[in-house]
């Protein structure tokens, strides 16, 4: 085991660096640039029961130190993910992959998870109950402890793979939602999904995004994400995957000190497609300078004393 290895819900991963869902497709675009097998794993594009086009464009807007997106879960649907995307993915990535799942009803979550459970390459199910860009699903499940627990409980019934619930920051008490997921059987939680936001075009006097609102990500949200990872780490005993604006090796260490067992990198991939490789390469030297032998030793390390 290398210095970067860590455990994620019972599966040993070589590195805590995990590209986040929606910023890494199914891996092919990045596999053209570097060997993506240096990653711990990656979370593939959010998958739903039925194919989805997503929202009209514009889907993207610039913000101070970040961006808004309102893609709206564009994906080919779970059946085609299994028949087309996973076989292609397996040619460029040889490790267990994280399957990101979304839905518009509990039944949809269950059906999609059950199908992905049968796929050998799927290591974890990351269940997204926090997408802010769809109506009547997504985030609405992640903003109440009861519905978050219900999705967790029902999904757990149909899979033997570790279930990681992806949580929304658009709540008053994210630790309470995390606790509800843990009590319902979740093997881990990941946070944060994007923060709901908006920009207007002052010339047209209209929202820039066709969906009007979108999810804010990028360095702007890092301190918000870090605080939430900190609170959730204190509240639960299952692994916490930290994400939100992480864009350097220093950010990774900070997230892990706050309590993250592994760290997802999202929008930084879009502005620097090599960022996950750079962070992976930068980590050992940074660890040397900070007196860290093995990265897993620092998880939650800032909570001591």
């Amino acid at each position: 085991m290398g210095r970067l290895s860590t455990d994620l819900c019972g599966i040993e991963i070589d590195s805590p660096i995990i590209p986040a869902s929606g910023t890494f497709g199914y891996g092919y675009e990045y596999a053209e640039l570097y060997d993506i097998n240096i990653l711990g794993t990656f979370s593939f594009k959010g998958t739903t029961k039925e194919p989805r086009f997503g929202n009209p464009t514009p889907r993207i807007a610039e913000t101070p130190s970040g961006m808004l997106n309102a893609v709206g879960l564009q994906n080919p649907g779970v059946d085609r993910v299994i028949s087309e995307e996973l076989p292609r993915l397996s040619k460029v990535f040889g490790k267990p992959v994280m399957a990101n799942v979304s839905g518009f009803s509990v039944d949809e979550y269950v059906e999609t998870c059950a199908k992905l459970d049968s796929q050998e390459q799927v290591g974890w199910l990351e269940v997204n109950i926090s997408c802010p860009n769809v109506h009547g699903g997504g985030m609405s499940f992640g903003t109440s402890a009861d519905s978050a627990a219900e999705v967790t409980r029902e999904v757990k019934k149909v899979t033997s793979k570790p279930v990681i619930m992806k949580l929304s920051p658009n709540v008053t008490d994210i630790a309470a939602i995390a606790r509800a997921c843990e009590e319902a059987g979740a093997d881990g939680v990941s946070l944060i999904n994007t923060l709901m936001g908006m920009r207007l075009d002052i010339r047209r006097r209209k929202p820039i995004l066709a969906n009007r609102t979108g999810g804010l990500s990028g360095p702007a949200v890092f301190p918000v994400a870090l605080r939430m990872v900190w609170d959730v780490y204190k509240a639960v005993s299952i692994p916490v995957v930290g994400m939100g604006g992480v864009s350097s090796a220093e950010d990774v260490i900070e997230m892990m000190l706050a309590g993250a067992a592994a760290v997802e990198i999202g929008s930084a991939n879009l502005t620097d497609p090599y960022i996950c490789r750079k962070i992976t390469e930068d980590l050992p030297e940074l660890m040397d300078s900070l007196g860290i032998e093995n990265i897993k030793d620092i998880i939650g390390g800032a909570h001591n004393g």
Partner: protein
Amino acid sequence: MKESVFRIKENRKIAPLTFLMVLEGDCAGMDRPGQFVNIRIEGLFLRRPISVCDVRGDELTLIYKTVGKGTEAMSRMSRGQELSLLTGLGNGYDLTKAGDAPLLLGGGVGVPPLYLLARKLRQEGKKVRVVLGFNRADEIFFEREFTELGCEVTVTTVDGSAGIQGFVTDAIPEDYSYFYTCGPEPMLRAVKKATGTSGQFSFEERMGCGFGACMGCTCRTVTGYKRICKDGPVLEKEEILWED
């Protein structure tokens, strides 16, 4: 796609709000007309996609219009400044369909990508006709450059202050073999209606990544969902889903 550092050699205004920037760097793998580069700009999060106007040796020419913070910041950059570019993005125009007498239709900042295309088509010995559309006479750029390539150039202006009064669609000749176009969407829609042959359209969209990962710029086409940045920006006329 490749990430490279380029150095600005030249950055000057060539028309109102319109700038020409020459950059020096590794131009390998970017000689397909109609492709674009994605530029990192200090102080902004997202890169800015700009179409390639010309590539010669290690020199890359871009023409851009100042439409927001990114392009305004670019217009203030000076010679010697270094920029991080993602290069070789997008599919580009398919030259094999041109036929003997292709027609190129460009409107405003849709004109630049047609320059490298015209140069390549001329190298292949094609008879190239170009229609360049602008709002007013003072906005015209690159008329001479296209002429010097040996293209037959017609200019249109909306207010009639130069060339033919009207739009590029008012200057379409009858006997062309195929067409290539780039410009604002209302112009592209008009071109689709006004043309009798097949052709290729280059599109613009707000992008997240520029290389196909984020699904930020997807559009519906006859042949399914296409990412403007990766499966485009060039689409064939027959693929486009516009109700007439």
